[in-house]
C-alpha cells in the first residue's frame, strides 16, 4: 500500500517536474509545478510530516503559486527561441545534470549508513504534527523562526522596491535596453 502511494506520488512529482521544464508556455509550467507540489505533499504525508505537507499545500501551492500565476499572466507568454546561443550548452547541460544525479545516487546507495535501507524507525506520537513542530520553533529554533520572519519582511520590502510603482521610475520611452 505504501509502495503504491509512493510510486503514485513519485510519478506525480517527476511528471510535474518534467512538465515544468518541458512545457513551452510558462503559464503551463506554473500549473505543472502545482501538480508537482501536490504530489510532493503526498510524499511528505507518507513520511509522517503532516505539518510540512499542509504548509506545502497551503503556503506553497496556494499562496506562492498564485503569485506565479499573476506574474506569468502579467508578463505574458515569453518567446523562447529554439536556437541555442551557447555552444555546448545543449549537450553539456543534460550531461552534467545526469552526472549530478549519478553522483547523488552513488552517494545515497553507496553509503554505509544502515538506516537508509530501512523504512525508518518507529516514531513517537505527534511526530511531524503542528504541536511538536511549533514547540521546536519556539524552543530550539526560536532564532531561526525570528530570522525567517525578518527574512519575509525584508523580502516584502524588496518586492516593494522592485515592483512598486514610484514616480521616479517612470521609464523614459525609447531608451535602449
Amino acid at each position, binding site marked *: 500500500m505504501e509502495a503504491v502511494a509512493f510510486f503514485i506520488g513519485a510519478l506525480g512529482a517527476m511528471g510535474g517536474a518534467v512538465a515544468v521544464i518541458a512545457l513551452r508556455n510558462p503559464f503551463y509550467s506554473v500549473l505543472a509545478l502545482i501538480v508537482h507540489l501536490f504530489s510532493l505533499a503526498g510524499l511528505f504525508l507518507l513520511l509522517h510530516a503532516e505539518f510540512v505537507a499542509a504548509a506545502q499545500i497551503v503556503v506553497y501551492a496556494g499562496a506562492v503559486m498564485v503569485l506565479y500565476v499573476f506574474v506569468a499572466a502579467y508578463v505574458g507568454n515569453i518567446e523562447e527561441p529554439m536556437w541555442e546561443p*551557447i555552444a555546448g*550548452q545543449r549537450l553539456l547541460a543534460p550531461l*552534467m545534470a545526469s*552526472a549530478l544525479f549519478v553522483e547523488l545516487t552513488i552517494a545515497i546507495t*553507496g553509503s554505509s549508513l544502515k538506516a537508509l535501507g530501512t523504512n525508518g524507525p518507529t516514531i513517537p506520537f505527534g511526530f511531524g504534527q503542528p504541536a511538536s513542530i511549533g514547540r521546536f520553533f519556539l524552543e530550539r529554533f526560536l532564532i531561526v523562526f525570528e530570522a525567517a520572519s525578518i527574512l519575509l519582511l525584508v523580502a516584502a520590502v524588496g518586492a516593494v522596491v522592485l515592483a512598486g510603482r514610484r514616480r521616479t521610475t517612470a521609464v523614459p520611452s525609447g531608451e535602449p535596453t
Partner: protein
Amino acid sequence: MSATTYAWLVLALPLAGSLTIAFGYRLWPGRAAGWIGTAAIGLAFLASIGALTQLLGEPSEHRQLTSSLWDYASAAGVNVKLGILVDPLSVFMILVVTGVSTLIHLYSVSYVESDRGYARFFSYLNFFVFSMLLLLLAGNFVLLIVGWAFVGFASYALISFWYRRETATKAGMKAFVINVVGDVGLVLAAFFVFRELHAFDYLTVFQGAAGHFHTNQGVVVAICLLLLVGAFAKSAQLPLHTWLPDAMEGPTPVSALIHAATMVTAGVYLIARMHPLFELAPTAADIAAFIGLATVIVAASIALVVTDLKRIIAYSTMSQIGYMVVGVSIGAYTAGMFHLMTHAFFKALLFMAAGSVIAAMASRQDIDRMGGFRRSLPYTSLLLIVGALALSGFPGTSGFFSKDEILVFAAERGGFYWIFAIAGYAAAAMTAFYSFRIVFRVCYGEPCPEAEALREGHMAHAEPENPVTGEPEDTDVGFPGPEHHVAEQARSMAIAMGCLGLAALVGGFVQIPGVSDAIGHFLEGTFANSKLATGNPPTGDAYLGLLAGAVVSVLGIGLAYLLYVVRPGLAPALRTRLSGVHRFLVNRWYFDELIDAVVVRPTLWLGRFFDDVIERRVVQGLVEGTVGVVRGTSTAVRFAQSGFVRAYALLLITGFAGLGLYFLIVSS
C-alpha cells in the same frame, strides 16, 4: 738619501708633473707646461742617478732593496703592498727611461708648440713616464700589472691624442685592447704564481720558485707562456704586433718615446725580470726566442717595402725588439739590456729626425714624396744618417756592439741556437738596407717641392689632411697644429737630437768585448743566480761576430745605395718583377686580416648573435612566452565569462560534478 728614497722620488716627480700640468691647464702660459714636464722628468733623471750612486755604494750582494708605502690590498691571505724593488736591473731601466724621456720632452717643447692640446700632451707624457717607472720599479706582480696597464693607457691616450681623427681613435683603441689582452695574460700568470707560491712579491716568488718547481714543470711553463702574452702584447711581437704600426697615428715625439724607446721594451724587461721563472721553463724561453726571431724577420721584411716614414721605423722597432727578446730569452741578459739601451738612443733619434722631416713636409709621411732634404735640412739629415748607421750596426756605432753581442751569445750557446745567429745576421742585412732606404729617399735624390721651399726659407704649408685617409682635417681647433717645427729652427729640438745622436754613436763603448763590461758588471746583482748568464763569450768569438756584423751592415747599406742612389730605376723594376712578394709584404703578411678573421669578426658575430638570437628570442621569448601563456589563459577566462547566466550555472554544476567526482574517488 737611500736608493729607495731616490726611487720613490723618481716615481713622484713625473706624477707630480703630470698632475700639476693637468690641474693648471688653464693657467700655464705659452710653453710653461712643456718646461714643467721636462723639468719633472729631468729631475727624475737626476734622482735616478742618485739611486744609481746609492746602489753602487752597496756591496754587490746587497743591491736588491725593497721599500713599501702602505698596504694596498691585503686581506684573506692575499698580501699586496705598495712596494718597490730597487735593484740593478730596475735602476738601469729607469736611467734609460728617464734619460731618453728627458730629451724627448725637451724635443717636444718646441715640436708640438702650436698644438692646442699642449698642456694635455705634457700631462699625458709625464703620466706615461710615471707609469713606465712604476712598471720598472714595481716590487710585486700587482704593482707591475698596475704600471703595465698604466703605460698601456698612456699609450692609448697619446696615440689618440688627436682624437678628432677617427684613424687615431681607432688606432688607440686597437693598441689599448691588445694591451689589455696582454694585461690579462700577465694577470693570469700572476694568479698562477700566487696559487703556487702564495705571494705576489718578486723576491719571495723568485726565492720560492727554485725549490717549488722542477724544470719544465707544466705550471711554470704555463706561467711563462702567460707572461709572454703580456710581454709580446706590449713589445709588439708576433702575433700581437699589429697595433704598433697603427700607433704611429700619435704625434711623433710619442712614437719616439713610447713606441720606440721605452714602453715597447717593457716586454724585454719583463722577461729579464722574470728570468728565474724562465730558466725553470726552458721550453717557454725557447718559444719566446723563436717568436722573437720570427718577429725580427717578418718586421724587417715589411720595413723593406713600406713607404710611410714613421711606419718603416715602427717595423724596424718591432724587429729590433725581436733581437732583444731573443737575447733575454736565450740568457743573453746583459746583451739584451744593452741592445735595449742603444736601441732607445738611436730609435728615438730616428723618430726625432723623422719628426723634423715630417714637419718640413707639413705632416706628410710618404717617403715616395720626399727627397733632397740633405741641403734644406742639413742638421736633421746628419742625425738621420747617424741614427740609420747605428740601426744598421755600422761598425763603431752603438747598435754595432749591442746587436752582435746577442748574436754571438746565441752562436756560443750551441745546440740549435746557432739558428738565431744565422737568421739574425740575415735580418741585420735587411735592417741596414731599409735604414738606408730611408736615408737615401729622404736626404738624397731630387729635392721635393717642400725641400725646395724650405731652402728658400719657407716652411711648407699644406691643407691639413689626415696622412692615412687623406680626408681633410678638422681645422676648427687647429690640431695637429697649424705651424710646424724643424730641428734647424728650434733649439730645444736640436739639443735633444744632438744629445741622442752622440749617445747613438758612442753609447756602445760602454760594453766592448774585451775592453769594457760596464753593463754586464752592473747587472750582475740581478742575474747573479742565473744559470745561463755565465759571463761573456770568448773575446775571439766576439770579434768574429763583430766582423760578420760589420760585413753584413756594409753590404746592406751598399745595396741600398745601389738601388736608390746609383740606379734609381732598379727599385720599381724589382717591385714589378717580384709583385707577389711585394704585395705580400706591403700587406704586412696579412696579419691584420688574419686577426680580423680569427678574433674580431667572430667576436662581433657573437655579439650580433647574442643580440639577435639570444636577447630577442630566448631572453625576451622567456618573458613574452610567459606573458603569452598568461594572456591566453586570460582570454579563455574572459571568453568563458560570456554573459550567459545559464553558462555560469552550467559551470557551477560542472564544478560540483568535478568536486563530487573527487570526493567519490576519495571515499572509495
